[in-house]
């Protein structure tokens, strides 16, 4: 098995606060890795470190054996790492189609002109926004903004996709669609890391989970195993319930 992504002794300090503390884990290629843990445990920070949004305080991150932790986010993106944001970030002055094109023009696999338009439209189709390319971003519902952000990520044809609570705030029907969509991405050969609180999604999607608490890894394994781990339950619910 090849490690698509491997974190070694990854540490991030914000002043005196250690947000991520000597974190180690490997993500197997073409698998879905869940990154879970209570609020404030450092999950989103880990995604920000992988995507190059923050520099590391110590440690290394490798992608297919090559160090990417010294790169800026645009270079990480060009190596084939795409991400969504916890609070959806769209380009508000542009149409839906242009938002998706933004992902394909400069990314890992680059397209321009008519080819970019065609590809962007195909990605809109893929996430269920087919034919709505001319709409403005303000006309979209909440789930559609999430879909659009994912379409932008897919437009760059990334090998690794980082999803930051992409399934949060969806109703049960939408959640089902979202889970199917992510699963179809894995079937296409993508490697996916998702930070998530929705336990149903974690159980049905993740091949493996890493559980974080206070910046450290406290468990790793199959979803059923880690979710029944007493230390994990203590981290989520406190001492009395463990």
């Amino acid at each position: 098995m090849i490690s698509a992504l491997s974190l070694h002794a990854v540490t991030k300090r914000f002043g005196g606060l250690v947000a991520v503390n000597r974190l180690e884990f490997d993500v197997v290629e073409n698998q879905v890795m869940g990154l879970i843990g209570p609020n404030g445990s450092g999950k989103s920070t880990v995604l920000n470190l992988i995507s190059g949004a923050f520099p590391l305080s110590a440690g290394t991150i490798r992608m297919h054996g090559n160090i990417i932790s010294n790169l800026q986010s645009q270079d990480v993106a060009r190596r084939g790492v795409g991400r969504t944001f916890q609070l959806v970030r769209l380009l508000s002055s542009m149409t839906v189609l242009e938002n998706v094109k933004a992902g394909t023009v400069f990314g890992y696999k680059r397209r321009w002109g008519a080819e970019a338009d065609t590809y962007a439209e195909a990605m809109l189709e893929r996430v269920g926004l087919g034919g709505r390319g001319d709409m403005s971003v303000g006309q979209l519902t909440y789930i559609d903004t999430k879909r659009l952000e994912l379409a932008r990520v897919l437009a760059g044809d990334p090998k690794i996709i980082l999803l930051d609570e992409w399934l949060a705030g969806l109703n049960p029907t939408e959640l089902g669609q979202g889970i199917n969509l992510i699963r179809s991405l894995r079937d296409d050969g993508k490697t996916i890391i998702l930070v998530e609180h929705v336990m149903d999604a974690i159980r049905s999607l993740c091949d493996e989970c890493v559980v974080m608490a206070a910046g450290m890894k406290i468990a790793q394994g199959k979803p059923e195993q880690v979710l029944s781990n007493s230390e994990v339950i203590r981290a989520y619910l406190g001492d009395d319930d463990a």
Partner: protein
Amino acid sequence: MRMTEAEWRDLVICLLCLGVAACFPWMVGAYWLSIGVSIAMFTVLSTSWAIFSGPTHFISLATAAFFGVGAYVVGIGIDYLPYYVLLPIAAVLGGLLAFLVGLATLRLSGVYFVIFTLGLAEFLRQMITWVQNISGTKGMYVLTSITEEHIYWQLLALAAGVWFSGWMIGRMRLGFALRIIGDDETVAKHVGINTSRAKVLLFMLPGSVAALAGAIIAPRYVYIEPSIAFTPMLSFQVVIMALLGGTGRLWGPLVGVIPFTLLWEVISISAPNQTTLLLGVSFLVIVYFLPKGFVGLVASIKRHSSIRGAQ
């Protein structure tokens, strides 16, 4: 490069307008020609300013710095080199200065950039004044046989060049990258855009153009000194005119430049001390009533009429 029918039509209209504008010196007297030169100069400066500041939202007050550098290239060089060699030198120096300023400041947030660019013009002005005090020279004379008509035509050609560059950039990846940066720089980085490089590259355009404009205008001044070449008022005028017209379209600044220059002229004649007031009032009008300039006004009128048409 393939162009649509509408683009060909626009191109023909633009060329016709430029042709008519080129005949302007034969149609009017000396007074109106001098106003024509001002309008052409501010069109060049505001349009190139808007090509960078429009999409990126970085407000540059460095126009006077680049303009002054261009004027001084001609002022110093005119005794040694032919005038037409000095123009490209001014353009290159302006671009180089913009490159250095961009490297130093464009990684910072917008506020620092504004202050730095304002300070740059002032810094250059003080430096040159200081050098002059030490060397004992005062201003410089630029004595050439270049007439007002020549200056007008050069500026018109430069304006055509600026419009063409703006149109090309809009069709390039760089133009798209800048719109993304203007909307959300974090997203821009995460889709793979080297945001610092894109901004620095584009900032060289107004730098180079303003220096060239300064070099073209220098013979008109005849006598150049720091307080004329590096006047901070110029930077503010350019910003106000560009915002008044609107930065969303390439023709936007022109629509701001024409009324503002005429108004400025009227006030300079009737109440010379009140030009600063005009600047202030214009700024308030833009902030409160025309946040997207005349371009935005036209767009919203169009939208309203199309809604009414649909009902």
